[in-house]
């Protein structure tokens, strides 16, 4: 009897260990397509421009369509944006003013594909946007979060109300994925092809993030102390949690992304050590960004380079 109990206990333990949910990709709560429309934050531009009528965004989301991966690299027509990669729709007054901030270093091929694709993609959404490239030009390991802080600093100075923090190798595949901010910070790239369109863990918060400029300022941006690959997104998630700004996700049918292929970079070794300290790091961020940066207006994007 006792041995049977022990056996049963062992079998159960093995079962739990093997099928433990945290060992697998996760199912997650998401905002449905209908509710997503209500969650988008719309703001009339401060300077009243006399235009015909306000732009509508309902149909952008409702007429969601998937773009085949094979079409990404095909050159397609888009309206030449203003210098610095800024675009303002002509036929209606945009209610969304977005800065897409792209931390970047030395990925020329991907950047070419990304910038052309994004202009085409975003111009179909009737939003006022600007692509801001934050380029790291020193020889230290890549500091994604710090570059984002530089980009965000400029975007806030230029009065952009919505920030989208975007990796250069991520390409949105669904036309309904509206590049505007929602009431809470939003993880946009939840259905990524290299993750088999699954979510590896619930607090994953890297790739493409939409956050209101006010919220970004409130949590003091991201930490400047994460060099190398990984860790900074988990830290950012904890900052948002600490400020009761719990992020959410939209339905996977709006959130499909593909990753442009590249060689993997070595992981940041001190990643977990930094993560445990992250609450102490809370002060470090936008306001400790003392370094100056120069701004270049390129044809298709604004480039921010720390001096």
């Amino acid at each position, binding site marked *: 009897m006792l041995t049977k109990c022990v056996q049963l206990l062992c079998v159960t333990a093995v079962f739990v260990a093997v099928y433990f949910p945290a060992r*697998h990709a996760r199912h997650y709560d998401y905002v449905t397509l209908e509710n997503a429309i209500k969650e988008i934050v719309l703001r009339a531009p401060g300077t009243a421009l006399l235009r015909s009528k306000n732009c509508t965004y309902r149909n952008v989301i409702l007429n969601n369509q998937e773009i085949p991966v094979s079409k990404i690299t095909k050159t397609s027509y888009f309206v030449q944006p203003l210098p610095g990669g800024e675009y303002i729709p002509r036929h209606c007054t945009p209610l969304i003013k977005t800065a897409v901030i792209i931390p970047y270093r030395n990925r020329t091929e991907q950047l070419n594909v990304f910038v052309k694709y994004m202009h085409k993609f975003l111009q179909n959404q009737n939003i006022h946007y600007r692509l801001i490239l934050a380029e790291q030009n020193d020889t230290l390991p890549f500091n994604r979060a710090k570059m984002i802080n530089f980009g965000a600093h400029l975007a806030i100075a230029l009065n952009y109300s919505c920030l989208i923090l975007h990796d250069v190798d991520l390409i949105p595949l669904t036309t309904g994925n509206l590049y505007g901010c929602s009431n809470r910070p939003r993880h946009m790239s939840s259905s990524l092809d290299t993750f088999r369109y*699954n979510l590896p863990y619930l607090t994953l918060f890297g790739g493409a993030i939409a956050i209101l400029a006010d919220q970004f300022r409130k949590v003091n941006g991201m930490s400047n102390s994460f060099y190398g690959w990984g860790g900074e997104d988990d830290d950012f998630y904890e900052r948002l949690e600490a400020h009761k700004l719990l992020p959410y996700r939209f339905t996977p049918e709006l959130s499909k992304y593909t990753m442009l292929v590249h060689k*993997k970079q070595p992981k940041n070794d001190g990643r977990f050590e930094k993560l445990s300290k992250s609450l102490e790091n809370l002060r470090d961020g936008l306001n400790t960004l003392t370094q100056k940066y120069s701004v270049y207006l390129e044809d298709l994007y604004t480039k921010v380079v720390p001096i």
Partner: protein
Amino acid sequence: MKNGDTDDLCCCEYYDLSNERNHILACLCNCVDLDEAVDNLVKGKKVSDQNKAGLTNTMRDRLRVPWIGGAIQVSFDSLLPVIILPLVFLVSSLSLWWTAFSFTTIGVFILLISNFFVRTIPKTKFFFVWTVTSIVLLYFIFEFVVIPFLEILVEENIALSVLIFGFIMCLYLMKLRANQLIAALDDESQLSFNGKSIEGFYACKICDCKIPDKDHHCVWFDCCISRHNHCLFLLSLFFAIAALLYSSNLTLTSVCHPYEFFKTILLPDDCSDVYFQFELGLSFVSAVYSILIAILLWLILMQQMFLISVGIPLKDWVKLPLSSKLCLGLNRLRPHNRGLIRNWLRIVCEITPKYTPINRDV
């Protein structure tokens, strides 16, 4: 115990093939076959098959591990897969060239050694141990290397486990039935057949038994396949193929770049990065191994389905000349053929046929 000495064995002692007390350290002494073989080698003569068989048998008998109550036997042929397979997996995960090289080597090695084993030690467990090692190794790699990539959902893992469970249950039942049959026939054949030559019963050298309606002896499952477990054999093949293909698909879409083939079905399209990291390489290699095995099993399944349809047991099919094989065996006398539908019904429905000499149908 047999020679009347009642002393307990020390941990390094054992009873050898001729029931004599022997010691591990004496493993190279007193071996006539070894002496003869070396003698022949030195003289430049050919070593006879009988000599080789004797040598391998002695080797199996003398390879022992010290144990309480007497040294226990570990036959080297059963141990080989446990050593070879993990080694091959490790080496293959280095680079594409290593993968190609070691998998080809393994293929050639299996062909050569199966020939050798069939001639010298037909009862070897080498092939069955190979099967078991493969299952264990593939499952462990999947659970502890692929799953931690955090890209596979719980239900996908459970679905795979169900397929594997189906395969193992079929395998278990198949072997169980074979053993039951052998046990039942042990008495029955002596009772009923009075030394006459019997049609429909075929001696199996490996099982040491006469098996009714024998199809073939499957060394990989270490089991005789005949009418009483043919259906389970096909089912286990089916489950094995399904589990191997599904696990390799899950693995490859995790470690490679996937694309949506149709709705939720993913297929890999770019695996160029897999050898940069050991875990990725190991997963990739296990997936490639799974696919290769699945292809082999699929060919066997197709052959089985064809042979059942035309009513030729595998053991007869392999003896057919090439010309008959090209005619799909249809030009030969097929004593077991009952027509396409009845052939299949017999396999699927009559899972416990009665083997009494009176109503035996041949």
